[in-house]
């Protein structure tokens, strides 16, 4: 028990150190320290880019948007108060940039499936749960890219990025019920897409 407590204390200390390092970097960057800003970019670029790439489904647009996110970070970093983790602040900024991008392009996120109410229950289970394997992470990525924008956004925010429904609701301007409904529809659509992949692979 003492060993476990010590391990937990070390973990908390390490996390605190990491948090303080983030804050120190942010303060330095806000003061004009170019090296500090570059470190912030290096630490967070992959997560921001991955979010943009999966949301947009287009590499070129994702790189443009990643640039825009970090340009906004550069402009607004002085306003970061430290009342939330920097990663949270940055992530919200990235999500807002994606949503603005969607709005500019007239992409509506509120629509449900193009078939209307969900009726397409997949009754045949996937061949085996072992078929969704490390290799098929690629199939999962491809399937996510095929989701309608509204489903994809909610799914990525909840299942990939770890947002709660309340936060998705306030971010997207939809009800919690809509967020839950779209998440379920996204998951069922992915199940359908992955079952087709599995079936094709078995042919």
């Amino acid at each position, binding site marked *: 028990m003492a060993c476990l407590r010590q391990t937990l204390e070390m973990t908390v200390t390490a996390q605190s150190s990491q948090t303080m390092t983030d804050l120190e970097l942010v303060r330095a960057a806000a*003061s004009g320290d170019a090296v500090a800003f*570059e470190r912030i*970019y290096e630490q967070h670029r992959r997560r921001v880019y*991955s979010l943009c790439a999966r949301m947009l489904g287009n590499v070129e647009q994702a790189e443009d948007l990643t640039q825009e996110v970090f340009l906004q970070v550069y402009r607004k970093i002085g306003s970061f108060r430290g009342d939330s983790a920097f990663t949270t602040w940055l992530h919200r900024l990235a999500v807002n940039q994606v949503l603005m991008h969607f709005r500019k392009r007239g992409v509506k996120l509120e629509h449900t499936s193009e078939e209307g109410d969900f009726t397409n229950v997949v009754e045949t289970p996937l061949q085996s749960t072992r078929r969704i394997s490390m290799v098929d992470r690629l199939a999962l990525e491809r399937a996510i890219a095929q989701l309608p924008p509204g489903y994809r956004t909610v799914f990525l925010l909840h299942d990939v990025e770890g947002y709660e429904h309340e936060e998705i609701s306030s971010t997207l301007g939809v009800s919690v019920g809509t967020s839950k409904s779209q998440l379920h529809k996204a998951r069922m659509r992915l199940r359908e897409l992955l079952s087709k992949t599995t079936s094709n692979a078995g042919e």
Partner: protein
Amino acid sequence: MACQEYQELISDYIDGTLELGEEARIERHLADCDGCRAVRDDLLQIVHFSRQLPLHTPSSEVWTQLQTKIAAERPTHFGSRVAAWVSRLKNLELNLSVPQLAASAAALLIIFSVALIISRQSAETPSASSLAGRSGTAGMNLLSNAEDQEIEEKIERLRESVEQRRVTWSPELQVAYDRSIRQVDQCLATCRQQLSGDPSDQVSKDLMRDAYLEKQRLLEGFTKF
């Protein structure tokens, strides 16, 4: 309840957001229904692997282009950032308690001064004491028009008025006043230093003028005590 209705609850069940009664009902159904159980297992797999998706790396071109955009923006960014800070100074509420008034003004002026020094990348940075040692009226010939001279005269009158009141203040108020004036004078000294090196530096002139206005506001605030 039909299987379709149960399946529509499976995501909430997986995420643990069902009411206890509903959760129990769906568990009873899952125990007896292969089809719904398969849906549950498949969705669990999807959720599990979604949380482990790898991070992708953008090309180096993203950083290159970002640097170009930042470099193009930097002078404006600096000017607008400092303008925002000065604007915040102007919006300080005089009904703040003394420590808040002085601390806010002092903190913002420190940031203002540091930003000015760092962004100009001065090779030689005089010590704070040497900067602060200059009187409030030194270097006033750098602001030469009639309006600026009027500000200077007003500041001097305010300063004399405040100095007369100062002796009646509490020690805490005196300390707050001294610290605030010291900070704004440091800021002014920084601007003077920049202008002495480059008298045509319009940004520093504008900042210096704003700093004088803020000094005036600060003194006006302290005349109320």
